């Protein structure tokens, strides 16, 4: 249950950015989370109110945009979809692949009321 730690880090960043922009309320927080980030979106959503209580983000809506899992094959050059425990090339089946997306743990966007 490290999602609470992640949420506390998120709220710290959000509060900082809200202050820099002289905002009194944060309305929407948008995150990009990939399946290999090690963070479970549903747990993040349930931990968020605890971390945000008493801050400018207390009433914010948390929007999580899941990211696709895609790999680039170093052997045949193809870009294909993959699953978290099968990151093989979808065309030739080789395991010499690089992750193109899927491990994101990013704060993407804030909607602030100033």
């Amino acid at each position, binding site marked *: 249950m490290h999602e609470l730690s992640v949420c506390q880090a998120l709220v710290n960043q959000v509060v900082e*950015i809200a202050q820099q922009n002289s905002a009194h309320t944060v309305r929407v927080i948008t995150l990009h989370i990939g399946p290999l980030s090690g963070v479970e979106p549903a747990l993040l959503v349930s931990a968020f109110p605890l971390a945000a209580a008493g801050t400018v983000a207390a009433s914010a809506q948390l929007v999580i945009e899941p990211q696709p899992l895609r790999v680039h094959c170093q052997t045949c050059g193809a870009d294909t979809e993959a699953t978290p*425990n099968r990151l093989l090339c979808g065309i030739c089946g080789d395991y010499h692949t690089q992750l193109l997306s899927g491990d994101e743990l990013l704060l*993407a966007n804030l909607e602030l009321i100033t």
Partner: protein
Amino acid sequence: MCDTCGCNVTPGNRHLAYKPVNGGTSAVSVLKKLLAHNDDQAAHNRAHFDTRSILTINLMSSPGSGKTALLEATIDALRDEFRLAVIEGDLETENDAARIRARGVPAYQITTGSACHLDAHMVHEALHHLDLSAVDILFVENVGNLVCPASFDLGQHRNVTLLSVTEGDDKPAKYPVMFRAADAVVLSKIDLLPVLDDFDPARAEQCLRQLASTVPLLPLSARKGQGMTAWYDWLRSELAAQRARVSAGQTVKPYIQPDGARLHAEVG
């Protein structure tokens, strides 16, 4: 979160962009790593290590897979060759640090209470309790857990994940985030393989390779002294590589497909 390294001024600030939505409301686009504060502290820790040419290795696994036993055997074999130190992470007790100290190596125990992982701030605090001027290799034995520790950079140079043969051989498929984070995977307790008919080392390796991992798989038994030479040789080569990097003014983070991270155009 971190007052020591000036991380309140972040590269993420440069990417602030304003898009008016309606009166009194504005949208700010950031693209910032959620764990940026932890990552800043981790970079600070790594700078401490690099200044002193220390190689730092983070050991991760399930509870009971033999991390401390591996360290005990490693200390016995390498204590005359290298100066070693250990940071132990557990929820409670000094037991593991006491086992290391009994071998004559300095150890600091972090007790996390109920936290399921170590983070860069806990390790930074622990560093103040160790004499880093007399260390070649620092081991951080993380909390036994195949989930959370994989998400937190501590400032280490390399991650080693242990898989004991008393666990399932499909563990890499069940815990892909953890096994993807490994720079080397140790298959521990192999002396028990003859009495375990349901663990197939070839299947464990296949599950690991399906994560697009090309890292070394080191089968060994710390208790019976089997396969230890390959582990010691890996440590020697990693320490030599670390010293070469330090001489060249470079550093390294654990291998987690750096090209993938670059392609995300992440800030931080």
